[in-house]
């Protein structure tokens, strides 16, 4: 047992013990903390780490990871976060303070695990930010420190013999994007099972042979991250099963619920009641007026083909739900479009599709009320293939198509250039923001995180303030960037799509060969 003073300053004896406990600035967070923490400190640490992760997130949205700009933006953020910058260590820090800082890192990580283990969406966000934070911190270390860390965590990889490297030189060179043969001979390569470097495999950035990946030393961080990710997602799965028992302590329950709800913004899981009068007949008009380009694409695809494939139906259907299209109206809308196709009649539609629409509204199967997709989800998951209209136009369309469209809508030239620049720099959400500004002739800066937010902002500008402020739940703008104070809201956990639900959803709509 170990009692911590409320101020967070620790007695020297404990501190020296901690030195052994935290031998390195980086942690894999394998051992949960076993000390007692006051509720106040618990909450404080949670808020601190969320602040850090939020900063990591916003830097990640605006910059390409690993680029110079990314590092610079991170530097800037760290300066802003100087009260909570325990996650970076400078030489100026007194050795005596180190363990207290590392302890904060340790505790706060575990506290957030509790808050973010609840749903797939939350887990995904948390893992992504923790990984980005870890990567940033890892890359700041010098090679001696890195080797030390790897050894302490049982990750001591051995490089392949130089003889083998020479033999495989050409393949190793070709597997990397920019390397030359001499480059290959200048670095060490590590042979690991391909399962340990899935991110490199996914991007075809590594040479594979017989089930092994040959990883150049510069990519070592990928192996470490993969190991970290696996460990973390496993731990979150276990935590989520354990949380119900812990929630019997009502004090924690309340705290935990509040922590994450604030920082992910509105999930648009339930359409707002006051302005939910969207009917099937209004969609055509609204789509031209207020739909974000991704949804306009889907709408156009639906009009042209009288059909949308699975992910298109899901992305569009849930969006429509989010803007307040009721189940009855949704059935009417989809049916009227689908049955325009030659091979679809009303009866066939009822048999093949109405189940899925009802499913989206939580009326079938697991009865989960599914949440509309956020921008991140649309941009990063399920890229469209042949015959697909879903996805993010700024990410998944030819740039000249966007340009054409903007020309047609006679956007000002400078706005067009800006959109195109953002697209080139892979800043798809920023491109969408510029698009929004041009489409609505406004200079208001809005951080667009969600297609439904685009719609609501657009409606707000068009109809005046009345539409957006019908209930105080929606007052999340500017979304999540500066909100720090914990206040009570009532998030509904069960709304989110969990892995299993999702699979069932996919199955329910399996198309027959």
């Amino acid at each position, binding site marked *: 047992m170990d009692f911590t003073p409320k101020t967070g300053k620790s007695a020297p004896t404990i501190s020296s013990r901690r030195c052994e406990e935290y031998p390195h600035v980086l942690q894999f967070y394998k051992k949960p903390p076993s000390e007692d923490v006051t509720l106040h400190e618990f909450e404080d640490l949670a808020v601190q780490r969320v602040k850090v992760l939020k900063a990591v997130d916003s830097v990640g949205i605006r910059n390409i990871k690993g680029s110079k700009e990314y590092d610079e933006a991170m530097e800037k953020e760290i300066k802003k976060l100087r009260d909570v910058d325990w996650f970076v260590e400078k030489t100026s820090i007194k050795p005596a303070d180190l363990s207290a800082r590392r302890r904060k890192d340790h505790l706060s990580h575990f506290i957030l695990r509790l808050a973010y283990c609840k749903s797939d969406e939350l887990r995904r966000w948390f893992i992504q930010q923790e990984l980005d934070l870890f990567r940033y911190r890892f890359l700041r270390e010098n090679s001696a420190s890195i080797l030390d860390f790897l050894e302490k965590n049982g990750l001591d990889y051995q490089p392949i013999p130089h003889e083998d490297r020479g033999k495989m030189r050409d*393949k190793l*060179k*070709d*597997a*990397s*994007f*920019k*390397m030359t043969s001499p480059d290959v001979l200048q670095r060490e390569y590590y042979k690991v099972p*391909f*399962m340990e470097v*899935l*991110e490199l*495999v*996914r*991007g*075809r950035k590594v*040479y*594979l*042979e*017989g*089930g*092994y990946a040959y990883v150049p030393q510069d990519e070592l961080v990928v192996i470490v991250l993969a190991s970290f990710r696996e460990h973390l997602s496993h731990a979150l799965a276990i935590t989520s*099963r354990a949380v119900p028992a812990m929630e019997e302590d009502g004090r924690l329950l309340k705290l935990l619920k509040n922590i994450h709800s604030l920082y992910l913004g509105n999930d648009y899981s339930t359409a707002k009641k006051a302005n939910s009068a969207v009917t099937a007949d209004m969609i055509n008009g609204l789509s031209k007026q207020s739909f974000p380009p991704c949804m306009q*694409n889907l709408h156009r*695809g639906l009009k042209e083909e009288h059909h949308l494939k*699975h*992910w298109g139906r899901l992305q569009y259907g849930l969006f429509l739900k989010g803007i307040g299209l009721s189940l009855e109206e949704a059935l009417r809308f989809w049916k009227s479009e689908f049955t325009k196709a030659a091979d679809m009649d009303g009866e066939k539609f009822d*048999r093949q599709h109405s189940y899925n629409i009802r499913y989206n509204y939580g009326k079938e199967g*697991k009865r989960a009320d599914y949440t509309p997709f956020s921008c991140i989800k649309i941009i990063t998951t*399920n*890229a*469209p*293939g*042949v*015959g*697909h*209209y*879903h*996805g993010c*136009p700024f990410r*998944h*369309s*030819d740039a000249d*198509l966007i340009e054409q469209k903007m020309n047609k809508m006679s956007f000002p030239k400078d706005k067009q250039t800006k959109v195109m620049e953002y697209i080139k720099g892979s800043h798809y959400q920023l491109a969408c923001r510029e698009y929004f500004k041009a489409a609505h002739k406004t200079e208001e800066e809005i951080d667009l995180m969600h297609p439904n937010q685009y719609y609501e902002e657009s409606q707000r500008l068009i109809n005046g303030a009345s539409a957006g402020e019908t209930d105080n739940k929606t007052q999340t703008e500017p979304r999540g960037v500066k909100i720090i104070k914990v206040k009570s809201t009532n998030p509904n956990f069960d709304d989110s799509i969990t*892995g*299993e639900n999702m*699979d069932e959803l*996919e*199955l329910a709509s*399996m198309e*027959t*060969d």
Partner: protein
Amino acid sequence: MCDKKSSYDPASLPDFLPMYYKRFFPYGAYFKWLNYGGVPKNYFSHREFSFTLKDDVYLRYQSFSDKQELEKEIQKRCPYKIDIGAVFSHRPRDQKAVKAADFRAMEKELVFDIDMTDYDDVRFCCSGADICSKCWPLMTIAIKVIHRSLCDDFGFEHILWVYSGRRGVHCWVCDEVARKMSQTARSAVAEYLSVVKGGENQAKKVNLYTGNIHPSITAALDIIGGKSFKSYAIEKQDFAGTDEQIQKILSFVPDENFRDGIMNVYEKNHPKTSYTFWNVFKEYIKEKADFTHKKLSNLPDELMLQYCYPRLDVNVSKGVNHLLKSPFCVHPKTGRVCVPIDHEKAEEFDPFTVPTISQLCDELATNDDSDNSSKRRVKDYRQTSLGRYMHVFDNFLKKLEKTWHGKIVEENGKDKQF
């Protein structure tokens, strides 16, 4: 023969199915496969099967404790379609009795689904569910490219290719490592194997950029680039035969001067065929793209990949509990059996000679007439045109069996020590 094949009538399916499930469906070999020697405990009994019955009635979460039960149930239900799902933490038939959070998909073969409909923008003979001998080579190429990578790059050994019964092929990777893969790992492999990317709003769907070309792409280009592309795109598809087709190809060329240049040279060319166009295209790019337009130098390769590289449905591969149609099903629309394909002889596989259920039943009736001894009935389907496909499956099983023989001996040894 020919008449019989075309004589399949979807309405007659319910009449043939009882006979098919009684005398053709290879329960023994099928069970041997999915039981994996009984080495992973409960592997078979925790496996989900799903049946599609008449009128699209869909039964999920079926499971069977052993071969006899599977056989009995299939014969009783006579499903129009059988899907294989994951191995779950509990018996799938108990799904309702188990807490939802505890009922989890644990393992499944790594699967790939390649469907001809995904090639509609690059085949000009048919579209949608139709296939013909002019577009089927796409599937042959797909089998070769994917198979090579799964073996050489990923080191997998137990790979079963199956005809989907109508317009595509399925791939089952059965190695232990593959069966244990997480969703992330499955999608990573599927992405590695995906080169053609982009939706309806992207014309050019392959980008090699200007760096080095990954060895797996080079290997795929070796397979496609030689005879395959010439025989498929140029001879069978005549892929640049019309102005519209040529415009489509030119839309991949991002530089206007290049587009005009290629057309100018081609205009002067006689005769105007896909073959000559392809040569003009290649030569022009090779000549002009060397220095200032390095970005364009990959265009011929990119074009070949866009027209021929396998297109996977990543979502099918991704989910551990995604269902996939079982081998040896009968496709209700075509009546053809979902037979295994010998990847080494992928070129020889002809979907139009795959036996239909009505043809098989006819053959069996003829055999029965000529040979009345009932002793041979158990394996008499091997005497029909299904036999040669069974041979492919047997070879796959023989190799697979070796993986558990070692383990069974090991386990037995352990038991004897105590």
